[in-house]
């Protein structure tokens, strides 16, 4: 257990636990990679500053061994091989995105090392039978669930349009959400995907509007989220409820759209405003581990002045959970830590952690955010809220 008092053993006499990973500092995922990296560094720093990881009475510092993978799958295997066989990392984090994670995962199994996935939400990773790969995130198929639950409970007669990007992640989110909405008895009048390279979405929006849709759910990335919002205006459609992936929770979304961002909602793994706390943990009947929300945010600011996003949170949380698992196992042995990761059910600043037998996350809940008068408010689920949903969206 990490004691909150400093100085159990002076940092100089500590051992080190080397956590290796690659991250996308350049290329397609450079933004997500940068945020993740800062989150990882902040979490590791916090642990080291707060007694390190204690195994058998000896404290260990977490050291990070990482390289830029340039968002390229071809780099993953050489980098992880180097990390494992030459740098001798003891634990691994996965790279960002499920595609890159898939390239790294076989090495974790081959070399019998734990690999924590923090940025690969595709469900398919967990269907491959990896022994040593654990997830921190809610899987993609559950992203829009909270929003649909809200609609089902409050506006069951709305007609839903689903429009989402055709990439491995967004399409799973969109398709699963459309199915879930139908299963909940909601009316889906439009359901379509588009490639990430789209330059004009007005035909889709016009068609969805013509189909009589009242609500719009989907999105994919920042760019197309913005495109959707802009073109809603140009095609003259004001849906009553909008929920878009990824884009909405970026501060830039509101900065760029101004008033028309108001009352748009979006799912998120995490926000700096969620209130997972030791008291929330005891209400939920689980133990709380690691920094509080506030502590993490403070530490994070030292590594990235532009503020944490959920990518920062999920990556940081991976380090925290890993540290707890090592302490729980009271060993650096992969098998023992793996058993600990399987049996652990805890809460961190990022929310709950518990995995099923494949290593897939089952306890963490998505939150639903909504822009309200210039700030992002968590409006669902009830355990994490800081406000309530305002309906309908008005376009200004």
């Amino acid at each position: 257990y990490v004691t909150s008092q400093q100085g159990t053993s002076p940092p100089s006499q500590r051992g080190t636990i080397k956590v290796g990973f690659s991250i996308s500092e350049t290329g397609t995922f450079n933004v997500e990679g940068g945020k993740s990296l800062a989150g990882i560094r902040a979490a590791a720093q916090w642990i080291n500053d707060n007694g390190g990881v204690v195994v058998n009475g000896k404290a260990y510092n977490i050291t990070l061994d990482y390289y830029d993978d340039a968002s390229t799958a071809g780099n993953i295997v050489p980098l992880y091989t180097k990390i494992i066989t030459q740098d001798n990392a003891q634990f691994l984090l996965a790279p960002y995105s499920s595609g890159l994670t898939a390239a790294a995962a076989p090495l974790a199994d081959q070399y019998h090392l734990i690999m924590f996935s923090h940025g690969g939400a595709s469900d398919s990773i967990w269907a491959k039978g990896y022994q040593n790969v654990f997830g921190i995130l809610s899987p993609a198929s559950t992203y829009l669930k909270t929003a649909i639950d809200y609609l089902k409970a409050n506006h069951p007669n709305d007609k839903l349009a689903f429009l989402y990007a055709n990439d491995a992640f967004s399409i799973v989110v969109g398709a699963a959400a459309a199915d879930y909405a139908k299963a909940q008895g909601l009316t889906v009048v439009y359901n379509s995907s588009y490639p990430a390279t789209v330059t004009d979405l007005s035909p889709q929006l016009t068609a969805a509007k013509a189909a009589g849709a009242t609500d719009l759910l989907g999105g994919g990335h920042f760019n197309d989220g913005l495109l959707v919002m802009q073109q809603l205006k140009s095609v003259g459609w004001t849906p009553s409820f909008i929920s878009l992936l990824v884009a909405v929770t970026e501060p830039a979304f509101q900065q760029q759209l101004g008033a028309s961002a108001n009352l748009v909602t979006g799912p998120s793994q995490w926000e700096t405003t969620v209130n997972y706390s030791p008291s929330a943990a005891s209400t939920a009947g689980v133990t709380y581990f690691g920094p509080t929300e506030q502590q993490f945010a403070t530490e994070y600011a030292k590594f990235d002045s532009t503020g944490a996003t959920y990518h920062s949170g999920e990556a940081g949380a991976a380090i925290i959970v890993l540290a707890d698992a090592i302490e729980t196992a009271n060993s650096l042995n992969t098998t023992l830590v793996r058993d600990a990761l399987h049996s652990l059910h805890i809460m961190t600043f990022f929310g709950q952690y518990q995995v099923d037998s494949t290593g897939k996350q089952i306890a963490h809940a998505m939150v639903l955010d909504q822009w309200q008068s210039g700030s992002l408010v968590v409006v669902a689920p009830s355990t994490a809220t800081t406000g309530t949903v305002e309906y309908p969206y008005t376009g200004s």
Partner: protein
Amino acid sequence: MKGRTPFTLYGLLAVMAALAAVASFSGVATTVLLVNLLVFAALAYSINFITGMTGYVSFGHVVFMAIGSYSLAVLVSTYSTSPFEGIALGALLGGLFALGIGAVTLRFRGVYFAIASLVLALAGYNLVLQFPQFGPGGELIFYIPFQPLTVFFAIWGIVVAEIVLTFFVNRGKVGLGIRAIKDEEDAAAAAGVNPMKLKLYVYMLSGLFAGAAGAVFAWSTFGVNASSAFDLTFSLQMLAMILIGGMGTSTGPLLGASIVYLLYYELLTYPRLQGGQFLVVGAAVIVIALFVPDGIVGIIRRKYPSLKPVIE
């Protein structure tokens, strides 16, 4: 030409044998590095068949690589075959697609061919997304054991085949005809060369090997993803490699691929450059292109004419 000792071929094969020895006896990290290097070399040789030899710039060459990648990924992930069957299918489809595509696009010259090949890559990306068989968002991932040495010898075999073929095509009847086409296509036809047939032949080889290399690439990354499978940067890297090495030659692609990839990888793992390595790679590419426009083989040819039989 006839009867001349093929020093170049012996030399290249000796280098390949040395690579095989290194891959087998040094650590895994070296092996996987060599796998990547040879994947790039295989791609460079493949584009060398069409662009290096005939001067037809295959801008969208990545499309053949993608065909190979998806062949292997579909077979392995959906039908659980061995990766070798995937490579075979990738090569076959790569070659067939090249024949089909080439029959239409090789009629276009210069920029027209380059862009016709580019649209195929752009269209291919969208078509892959259209069909769920290629996975959600064109992503297929699979889990097979990590066997670096097996992958190494798969790609090694491909590169050896390419070297031998490049060498003999260059030296033989086809090579002479192709050089004529590269200089003056109409005059070549008027001398009895059937330009379409020769171009199709090398384009087919080019597609076949790009397909095979793409399949190995998917194998080595345990999956394929539409946005990276059709990433045009690959095409550009291939072009840069053959330019840097020496277009059309049998040594150039291996030289170019080694330089570009090793430089890139060295920088990637050079801790202080994180995020900035492309500055150095980019600057190096600029400098080489502008100051050594005929590639390393070109320099050697100019500076040390006596080495000609060894490098060509």
